[in-house]
């Protein structure tokens, strides 16, 4: 369900669900995150006034009544306590400006007709309302434009996880960039004879799944070699020659010192299942790579050839020390043959003759992220990463968030990191022009 075309109405939806949305300041990668502390209820703005008989485009002053992500509920000055004319606006896209913008741009401030008749002296009225009040940052729209410039463009080559075999990476070419999200075409099957896309993959440019060209060889990760007959350079879809990505285009991960007490092959841990992101499972370190990366296998479901191992960085939210689920009241998915109710780690370690990975190796610090359960947001369905969906924070455990996709069964819930680049404030899709998937069915 394409909410952009259908016009998904976040305002009405929030009204029904209690107006709780994660603030923009929770999303470090989101446009204007650093400026959003300055946006608050009561702030005055100049906004397009359509309640007028004038032919010219005129504006009037409104106050922010409520904030939900990038969306603001506005009330025109003069309506006082009357909320019947309140309207939702996306501060990042709509014709909303700091006070003073109209004068600079030769636009007029004209009250809605029914207010105009009640105001005897417009200047005195506005002086009383505006002097000493707060308005939008002067550079609001400039900063917005700045934060929408990205280090990626069409034709940049990257290494990205192979969705058909998660243990390895593949070369891919950036086809589209929307709001920092990359549409990648796998190089060896990217385009058919008539130019149609055979296989693509979507992820944010800061995703842990995407790397610079040469990364796999550097850290010792498996990569599928591109066949000799593949040459995407010549395809008309790419107007410029392809260009290899380089390390500085990617997010720098937390430095990991791999001394004598780093992860070792065979150590046990708990890990988010990469193929079923709602499950946290009993898992094992299968291989230690360089630069703090490890290959992890889920106990009891491994095929045996290593094709289902998954690469995690030591700082990843998705690997957890043994006992983490029990300590935090999260159901642990145990290996086939074991029963969750009777499973204990000490017994399992003894039976398998293994040791637990030391707890201090994990990045489970509670970082005070600001999310709380019940907050609405826009989130990527990581099992179908093309889709950004209407979602709700269901649980917060340390840095982990359990996301529920509105309208879907709880079995589709996914654990994500509170700093995941694949979660966005309400209104992000509208700002970037990305399609938002509305909840299915009546909510």
């Amino acid at each position, binding site marked *: 369900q394409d909410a952009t075309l259908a016009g998904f109405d976040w305002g009405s939806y929030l009204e029904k669900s209690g107006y709780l949305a994660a603030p923009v300041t929770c999303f470090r990668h989101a446009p204007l995150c650093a400026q959003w502390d300055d946006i608050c209820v009561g702030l*005055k703005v100049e906004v397009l006034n359509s309640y007028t008989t004038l032919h010219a485009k005129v504006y009037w002053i409104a106050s922010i009544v409520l904030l939900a992500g990038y969306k603001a509920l506005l009330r025109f000055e003069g309506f006082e306590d009357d909320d019947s004319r309140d309207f939702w606006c996306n501060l990042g896209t709509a014709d909303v400006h700091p006070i003073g913008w109209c*004068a600079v741009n030769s636009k007029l401030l004209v009250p809605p007709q029914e207010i105009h008749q009640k105001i005897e002296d417009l200047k005195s009225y506005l002086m009383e309302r505006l002097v000493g009040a707060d308005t939008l940052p002067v550079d609001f729209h400039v900063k917005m434009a700045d934060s929408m410039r990205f280090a990626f463009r069409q034709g940049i080559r990257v290494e990205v996880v192979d969705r058909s075999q998660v243990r390895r990476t593949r070369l891919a070419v950036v086809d589209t960039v929307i709001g920092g999200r990359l549409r990648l075409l796998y190089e060896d099957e990217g385009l058919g004879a008539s130019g149609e896309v055979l296989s693509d993959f979507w992820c944010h440019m800061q995703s842990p799944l995407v790397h610079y060209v040469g990364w796999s060889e550097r850290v010792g990760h498996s990569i599928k070699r591109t066949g000799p007959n593949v040459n995407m350079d010549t395809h008309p879809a790419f107007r410029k020659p392809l260009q290899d990505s380089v390390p500085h285009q990617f997010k720098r991960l937390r430095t990991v010192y791999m001394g004598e007490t780093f992860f070792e092959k065979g150590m046990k841990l708990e890990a988010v299942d990469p193929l079923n992101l709602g499950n946290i499972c009993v898992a094992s370190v299968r291989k230690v790579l360089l630069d703090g990366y490890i290959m992890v296998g889920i106990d009891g479901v491994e095929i045996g050839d290593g094709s289902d191992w998954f690469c995690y960085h030591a700082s990843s939210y998705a690997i957890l020390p043994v006992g983490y689920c029990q300590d935090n009241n999260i159901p642990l998915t145990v290996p086939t043959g074991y029963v969750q109710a009777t499973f204990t780690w000490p017994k399992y370690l003894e039976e398998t003759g293994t040791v637990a990975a030391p707890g201090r190796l994990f990045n489970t610090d509670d970082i005070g992220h600001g999310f709380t359960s019940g907050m609405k947001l826009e989130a990527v369905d990581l099992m179908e990463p093309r889709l950004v969906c209407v979602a709700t924070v269901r649980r917060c455990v340390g840095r982990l968030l359990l996301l529920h996709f509105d309208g879907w069964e709880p079995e589709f819930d996914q654990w994500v990191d509170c700093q995941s680049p694949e979660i966005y404030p309400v209104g992000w899709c509208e700002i970037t022009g990305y399609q938002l998937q509305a909840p299915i069915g009546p909510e």
Partner: protein
Amino acid sequence: AAEGTGRKWEQKQVQIKTLEGEFSVTMWASDDKK
């Protein structure tokens, strides 16, 4: 609110233009610290 973010609140003189004339008011807005 802007403390620590590299931004500060400042008083700004802003112009208001209506059908009845133009005048200025003093408001608060944040900006990058200079």
